[in-house]
């Protein structure tokens, strides 16, 4: 039962083959059994089982929706009323959220069960889940490697089937890169598609929440619940939410796939290149055509991102000052000392590094040279995509330049760590939807992700393209050894 997708579990619940309480207990047991993965920060069986009982009651009354009774793991970046919500940081290590994020409220409204809060890089800053205050997460495919980040806990949880599905958030690749490294389908929606209310901010103009699932069909089911305008988020877009599931079955004949030449050059590992090319060949068999496109400013995406994201973060994280909630240093002399000690002790090294970079980039005398210039670059990067989409419907390439790397391998080298998001970051800068799907394995048996980038608010097509591939292949159904 634990190997089933959300869509399959939904049918099992509907046919009364299983109850939500049984399902929830099953996954809670697996979480406990595989706790060495460190995928979860908080599990609260009583709360989850209470929701499961409510879901079963709702179903008994004939009021069930597709996700009613389905346990979903939530990244610990989403505030959930009454739940410890840490964002992977010591700063919030005892913060119990007094309200629900909009995404959480929508899952509850659909009758989904909150299975637990998953581990993550501190304040979503990291690509390996090693910056978490709660320790690193291990990749079920090889426990000596990282699951990617920042949504590493969600990735490991679904990959090991400790949860049938999870949420993540993606500011520069934090859904797609861990999905690629753990053989999942991970979707970063268009900016404005999913409400950010209650999702703890890292870089407000880039952050988006989205599903991390076993299949494109599951991603469509979860996105259908998460998406939609929210008047509490002024950046959410008031556009109708299409029926993502209904769109899955369109044939791919005539689909034009753009292949950016910049995504297949230096720095891409041979194994990843081989798997991605094989996946593209499969798409040709399914009736798609390919066309070379160019994203000439791709190489500027990482420097652009590492000015803008830290700039916004430096301001967003100012509220963690020890005054109203969260961690406060035990000893201090006066106000300034309280601020300094609280923030010095409450934040980890990567968060501090980004606060300092961002503060610098916004400082008088540097603002024009860094922040404004990066904003101009951002527009150029978005224009690159607009031009590419004149000749293609979707863009494909690798999600990450390598497969999962060893724990600790890049911890002391931030730049090399930042490069693992080289293919994902520009999608956030352009506000486009991007998806990673399983596309095979490298020589060591580690998963490779194929990235598919769509037009603004083109999630329907993106999920359809992913689903058709998954109808023809079975990479996404493979499980890591020891968890099957």
């Amino acid at each position, binding site marked *: 039962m634990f190997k089933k997708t959300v869509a399959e579990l939904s049918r099992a619940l509907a046919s009364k083959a299983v109850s939500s309480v049984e399902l929830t207990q099953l996954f809670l047991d697996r979480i406990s059994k595989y706790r060495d993965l460190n995928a979860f920060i908080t599990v609260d069986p009583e709360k989850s089982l209470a929701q499961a009982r409510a879901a079963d009651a709702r179903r008994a009354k004939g009021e069930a929706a597709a996700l009613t009774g389905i346990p979903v793991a939530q990244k610990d970046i*989403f*505030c959930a009323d009454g739940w410890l*919500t840490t*964002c992977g940081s010591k700063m*919030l290590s005892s*913060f119990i*959220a*007094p*309200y629900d*994020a909009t995404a959480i409220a929508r899952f509850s409204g659909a009758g989904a069960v909150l299975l637990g809060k998953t581990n993550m890089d501190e304040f979503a800053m990291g690509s390996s889940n090693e910056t978490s205050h709660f320790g690193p997460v291990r990749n079920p495919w090889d426990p000596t490697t990282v699951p990617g980040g920042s949504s590493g806990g969600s990735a490991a949880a679904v990959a090991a089937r400790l949860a049938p599905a999870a949420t993540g958030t993606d500011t520069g690749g934090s859904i797609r890169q861990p999905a690629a490294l753990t053989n999942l389908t991970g979707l970063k929606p268009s900016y404005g598609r999913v409400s*950010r*209310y*209650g*999702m*703890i*901010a890292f*870089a*407000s*103009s880039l952050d988006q929440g989205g599903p991390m699932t076993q299949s494109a069909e599951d991603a469509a089911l979860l996105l259908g619940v998460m998406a939609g305008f929210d*008047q*509490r*988020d*002024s*950046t959410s877009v008031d556009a109708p939410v299409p029926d993502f599931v209904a769109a899955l079955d369109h044939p791919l004949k005539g689909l034009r796939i753009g292949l950016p030449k910049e995504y297949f050059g230096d720095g891409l590992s041979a194994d990843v290149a081989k798997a991605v090319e094989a996946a593209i060949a499969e798409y040709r068999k399914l009736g798609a055509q390919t066309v070379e496109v160019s994203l000439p400013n791709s190489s500027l995406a990482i420097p652009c991102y590492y000015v803008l994201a830290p*700039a*916004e973060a*430096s*301001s967003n*994280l*100012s*509220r963690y*000052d*020890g*005054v*109203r*909630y969260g961690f406060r240093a035990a*000893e*201090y*002399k*006066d*106000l*300034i*000392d*309280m*601020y300094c000690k609280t923030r010095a002790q409450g934040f980890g090294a990567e968060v501090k590094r980004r606060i300092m970079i961002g*503060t610098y980039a*916004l*400082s*008088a005398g540097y*603002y024009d040279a860094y*922040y404004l210039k990066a904003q101009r670059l951002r527009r150029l990067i978005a224009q690159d995509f607009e031009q590419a989409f004149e000749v293609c419907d979707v863009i494909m390439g690798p999600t990450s330049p390598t497969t999962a790397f060893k724990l600790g391998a890049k911890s002391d080298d931030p730049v090399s760590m930042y490069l693992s998001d080289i293919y994902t970051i520009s999608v956030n800068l352009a506000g486009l939807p991007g998806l990673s799907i399983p596309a095979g394995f490298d020589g060591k048996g580690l998963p490779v992700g194929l990235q598919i980038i769509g037009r603004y608010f083109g999630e329907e097509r993106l999920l359809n393209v992913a689903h058709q591939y998954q109808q023809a292949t079975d990479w996404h159904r493979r499980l890591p050894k020891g968890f099957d």
Partner: protein
Amino acid sequence: MEWESVIGLEIHAQLSTRSKAFSGAATRYGAEPNTQACAVDIALPGVLPVFNEQAARMAVKFGLAIGAQINHRSVFARKNYFYPDLPKGYQISQYEIPVVAKGSLTIELDGHERLIGITRAHLEEDAGKSLHEDFHGMTGIDLNRAGTPLLEIVSEPDLRSAKEAVAYMKKLHQLVVYLGICDGNMQEGSFRCDANVSVRRKGDPKFGTRAEIKNVNSFRFVEKAIEFEIERQIDLIESGKSVVQETRLYDADKDQTRSMRSKEEAMDYRYFPDPDLPPLVVDEAFVREVQATLPELPDARRARFMSQYGLNRYDAGVLTSSREMAEYYETAVRESKGDPKIVANWIAVELSGYLNLDNKDIAESPVSAKPTTPSQARLPRKSLRRCGRARAMPMRSSPRRASSRSPIPVPSKRRSTR
């Protein structure tokens, strides 16, 4: 040597919206500490601001009243600094593109009119309050005020004396109250002033180095603070020293200004556009809609009173000093069918005199405008006073003392905590 002073004022007018600038919490004054601060106001993790359109309406109303250009697209920016009563660690304001661009206001002093330029007016949110007493060496934080909408009105350095500055401030005060966008209550901090002051030798085209006097909250103190500051700067220069650019505080007890921080210590606010808020778009239709709600403005009404009722300039000025006063007068003229000049005289001199004695304004007048006849002017003083007392409104209460529990205690900047 003849000196000329150059003064520019930054006025913060609290907009009288029912809810806050970026949250749904109420803005009522005087509630128990932290009872009017919602999740957004206390900056919980994950919350987001949503702009209150009512504040834009009021800002545009003001812009139209001073003949300013309205920017159809203005941008919210974050002003970053740490302070315990600033929950997010930044204040949402407008920086590069304010909603109201250049306009002007005519002031009158000793019978002379002068046009004072207004550089801009922008929307921003207020911070909370730090309460320094009663917390055993700690500071209490009350966030009821956090997020209250303000309109910051920045004048050109066009004012040339403390008296002109006060005339400008009073004119602005009258206008925002007239427009119904600010209650004008200076004791409660609804109308506050920062003054930029410098001096130069008469005829010198260059400005001198300026000092900014922060947060002066009465007309009288503004005048005294500026006068003191002008003298201080002239003394400095005449004794061979120079003025340093700095922020100063006015101490009303000692009637002097003292240094708060120098230019070197000036904060770098790291302004940048707030990524949580799209630009504020004010289209033509919105402007027209607001235009339609503009009342007759004080200057126009004064001119009309002079031509329509044959009043002299002074009486017309007194009778248009507030919207209530002007309406009271026009009602009285209409109802009494009396000589408008006699009615004017009765209201401006007799009634106003009695009201002043009782420290009331026209809205609290125990004599209704409707049955007014000139004979009422002969009412014995005693009867009016008794009548007044019977209907007396409670006096404006002083800001309520915070209880010792509800504010959030944080270490004081000034004192060591252990």
